């Protein structure tokens, strides 16, 4: 610490005070309404339907998982960056090994399709292989589908 850290705490207190003050003033000055549709969630002017917390794309979860893995690894690199010169070439070699491991993980996830959203070519082909054994005509979004029909590589059709 190059100086006392207490100004930081004062700064934090000022920031919290400002935020609280703004909230309080707005609460005091704001108008009040209570009409028929005031208590409804906004759904572009129509009456809301369906489940509020329905099913969501699994990819949001995958991104969260990737973040936990890679941000931790990044934290290890922070520790190297600050002592890069003192650690010398030995430290650099260690960092490089770590970096390669990280890169291998990234390439693996990439190849697995964890970074792609929606239906990928691999997923479609896997589904086709599964269907083929059941001997029923394959349809994709209601359209009869044969092997070799060109499909988009990524995203929804």
């Amino acid at each position: 610490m190059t100086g006392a850290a207490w100004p930081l705490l004062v700064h934090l207190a000022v920031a919290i005070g400002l935020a609280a003050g703004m909230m309080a003033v707005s609460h005091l000055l704001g108008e009040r309404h209570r009409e028929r549709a005031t208590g409804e969630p906004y759904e572009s002017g129509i009456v809301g339907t369906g489940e509020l917390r329905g099913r969501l794309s699994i990819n949001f979860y995958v991104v969260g998982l990737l973040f936990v893995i890679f941000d931790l690894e990044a934290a290890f690199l922070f520790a190297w960056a600050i002592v890069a010169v003192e650690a010398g070439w030995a430290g650099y070699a260690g960092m490089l090994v770590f970096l390669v491991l990280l890169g291998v993980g990234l390439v693996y996830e990439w190849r697995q399709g964890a970074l792609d959203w929606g239906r990928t070519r691999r997923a479609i082909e896997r589904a086709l292989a599964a269907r083929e054994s059941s001997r029923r005509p394959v349809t994709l979004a209601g359209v009869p589908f044969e092997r070799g029909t060109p499909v988009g590589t990524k995203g929804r059709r």
Partner: protein
Amino acid sequence: MTETARALWSLGGIVLAVLSLAAGLIWVERRLLAVWQERYGPNRVGPLGLGQVLADTVKLLFKEDWIPPFADRPVFVLAPTIVMITVLTSFAVVPVAPGIGVVDLNVGVLFVLAMSSLGAYSVVLAGWSSNSKYSLLGGLRAASQMISYEVFMGLALMGVVVLAGSFDLRRIVEAQRDGWFCGPQLLGLVAFLVAGLAETHRLPFDLPEAESELVAGFHSEYSGMKFGMFFVGEYLGVILISALTTTLFFGGWLGPWLPPVVWLLLKTFVLIAFFVLCRATLPRPRFDQLTGYAWKWLLPLTLVNLAVTGAIRLALEGP
């Protein structure tokens, strides 16, 4: 002047300056957008339309301060304050000029990164507690976007840390006396700017609040000053990212003839104008493209940048 008085004066000055800059930025942005899109922008209230900011503030204060009955009350109220508090607190470690600055932390860079991570809670909690479909989708998008870009936001800065040998922002500025880091750390600069755009949800990365798809995304259910705080938080974020980029890559307050504070403000303003130019010109990507950029391009790019920077630094100076 004693050390205590100096710190307090800096604190007051910085908070006041930053808040008025954020308010002024609303006007600056609208005028700049108007220039680039060949229209007038706000020009009715007061000279050059400068009164627009004041009028908007008064309007927001008198709007209904509505807490939805279906929302999670405490979280709903807390969420907008988080973004403002974290961004405002980050300014404490930004060195303005020699002798001006709230506090010199020897972990300054890490502190800023930590605060920006905490800022993610604001949008996530806002989206979740609102209990509305648009808000939930916006909050989820915001969460994925912010954590995707956070990973390499820190890594992009590590090249600078390797060159300066310190996390202390003041020492990083001093290390740039012989040359700004924007040259040797060009890749880091590009990655950091992109991450900055994504972290502050500025266009083209404003998918969490994409108005053509999600109405207003995570703040659909917010009104009055609670909405205003998200708004102010976003503009404070733009100033913070610009000031940090200046400090880390463009030599901070360093420059000839003019006083240091003026240099910092000038460079920061150029970067703010760049942010606005991005908004004026770039279209919005699809969400899978957005996370794709982060993981497939920018993360490998920053890792390569870090490895090359480390090797060159060691080769030039020896262990």
